[in-house]
Each structure stands twice: as structure tokens, then as C-alpha cells.
């Protein structure tokens, strides 16, 4: 797929505001960003160019989509090929957006983020480094 789906995140239609206690589809994927080759689309390339490490290609290695996630629910899975776990918990859903908490690994990192619209995406990591030139990142998108 070569990060084609990542570009689609940019090209998807406009998102919508959330109603109170509305349910959302939580899409969580794990992508492998590599410094090899050069297969990124220009928009994502521009974003990644701001990183200290110069990534040149991306590939989805794991994906979990849970439909109808309500406030207080969470999605937890072990990243394929690693010992690391990812937990995404929906803290609140309201007019301001959806607040969720992301836990990378058991004690690696934790963060609180707010998506103001459907389709907004958070990319966090790296959660693992399977190769010297490859790092795994978690991509979270409420739909």
C-alpha cells in the first residue's frame, strides 16, 4: 500500500463536529516508516521533512478499526511483530471534539489529544524500531 492510505487521510472529505455521547469509529493503524527508497506522497513528505529523521517510505504493518466506540471505551492491541501494546481510550465526546488518551507500550509514553473533526489524524511514535533504518508509528483517526 506504501502509505497510500496515509495520503487518503488528507484527501478524505471534511469531517463533522461531534454530538454529545456520539459514537465514533476508531481507526488505529501501525505504520513502518523507513529511510529507504522514496515513496511518500508530497503532502506527507512535507510533514515528515520536519522530523529529525528523514523518512522516505511508509508501509502499514498492522491495523485495528473498532466501530461505534463510545465515551469510556477503549481499543487495545499488541503491535504485530513486537512486544509493545497500544491502548486508545475515548475520554470524552462532545461539541468540542473527541478527547482520547493514547498509551504507547506499557510505560513508553502516554498522551492526551483532541480531534476536532472526523478524519483528523494523530501519528505518534516511534513505538518500536524493528530495523536500524525503520521505525513503527501509531496512526489514530476517528471516523
Amino acid at each position, binding site marked *: 500500500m506504501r502509505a497510500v492510505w496515509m495520503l487518503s*487521510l*488528507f484527501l*478524505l472529505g*471534511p*469531517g463533522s463536529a461531534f454530538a454529545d455521547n456520539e459514537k465514533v469509529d476508531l481507526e488505529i493503524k501501525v505504520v513502518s516508516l523507513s529511510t529507504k527508497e522514496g515513496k511518500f506522497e508530497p*503532502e506527507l513528505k*512535507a*510533514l*515528515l521533512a*520536519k*522530523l*529529525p529523521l528523514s523518512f522516505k517510505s511508509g508501509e502499514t504493518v498492522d491495523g485495528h478499526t473498532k466501530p461505534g466506540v463510545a465515551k469510556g471505551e477503549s481499543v487495545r492491541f499488541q503491535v504485530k511483530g513486537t512486544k509493545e501494546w497500544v491502548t486508545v481510550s475515548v475520554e470524552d465526546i462532545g461539541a468540542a*471534539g473527541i*478527547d482520547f488518551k493514547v498509551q*504507547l507500550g506499557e510505560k*513508553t*509514553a*502516554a*498522551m*492526551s*489529544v*483532541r*480531534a*476536532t*473533526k*472526523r*478524519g*483528523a*489524524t*494523530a*501519528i*505518534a*511514535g*516511534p513505538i518500536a524500531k524493528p530495523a536500524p533504518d525503520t521505525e513503527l508509528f501509531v496512526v489514530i483517526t476517528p471516523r
Partner: protein
Amino acid sequence: MSEGADKPSWLSECLKEEIEEALEARDFSPFAGEVLKKIEVEVEASLSEPFVAAASLRAEVEQELESRSPHWSAFTKGVLREIDREERAEARQPLVDRAVGELRRDVETELERAEPQFEHRFQRDLSRQLRKSGPSLYERISAFFSTYFEGWRAGAGFAAAVAAVFLLIIAAPRIEPPPDRVMVPREDRGSMVVKEVSFEGRVMVIEGEGVTFVYLSDS
């Protein structure tokens, strides 16, 4: 010098004849036999003696042959190489002829195959050129009106046509652009706001259009 000095005198002529007659009368064969015999004896004696210079000449010849030996082998190799080259060239010649023949057949086949295309293109280009070289729009309109309004001049017909077009433009209802052509302002895709990060290391938050990147590094 007088003429008498150039011409032999009578006396000398007489002496010459007498000497010749005396020589003819005399028998020299015993003398010649003695001389020949003496020569044979001397030659046999010289042949019987050992040839002193032979050894030195033989050694010199052998030395010269030894010094030229490598040159002889190089020369021999060169000659053999040249012979081989000629033989190879002769052997290759039929191959080259065959290859040239094959290529020629391929080209001819390809030309035969592509010939209809050439003809088609040529015909198409020719028709296009004919269309281009046809009468212009003005000429066609003038011809139409000149035949339609007999007795009128072509310019008057063209003016009437232009006036008709203007009238149609003014009288026609305004055509609205189709709905899908109307520009809709691009709606905000929203954002992903990072409120808090708990990580023992360096955190870099990069916000793009609808995407936020949280990069964690140890240092």
C-alpha cells in the same frame, strides 16, 4: 697525325701474316697439356689440405642462428597468427552474410507489415491538408448567402448573418453555470490537538493540515 699513321703499313701487314702462319704451324697441345696437368696437381694438393677457416665460419653461423632464434619463433608465430586470422575471417564471412540476409528479411517483413499504416496515415494527412486548404468560414458564408439571396452581394449576406448572431446573443436567456461548477469553499478538516504528553525524553509535536505528528526521541 697523317693518314699513314692510322692505316697499317704494308710491312706490318706482312709481319702479322707471317706470325699468324707461324702460330698456326706450331703445335701448342703439349704445352697446354702440361699446364692443365700442373693446375690439376695444384688443385688436388690444395683440396687435400684441411680448410682452416671452416670451423670459425661454422661457429659464426651457429652463433648467428642462435641469436636469431627468438626472432625466428616470433616471426613464425606472427605468420601463424596471420594465417589463423585469415582463416577466421574466411569462416566468419558466411556468418556475416547470413546475418545481413536475416536483417534484410526482417526489415522487408516489417515494411510490408507497416505499409498499410503508412498508407492510412498518408491518406489521413492528405485529407487533413485538403480540409485546411478548403474555403474559409467567411468564404463559405458568403457563398451561402450569395446563393440564397440571388442578386445580393456576398458582403450584405455576411453582414446580415453577423447581425442575426448578435440578436441571438442579446435575446437568449442567461445560462447559469451547472451546480457542480460552483466553487465551494474548502471546509476545515479539523485538527488534532495534543493536550499532554508523558514521556521521558524529547517530544516534538508537528502539526499539519488535519494531521499532528508526535515524535518521541530518547535524546
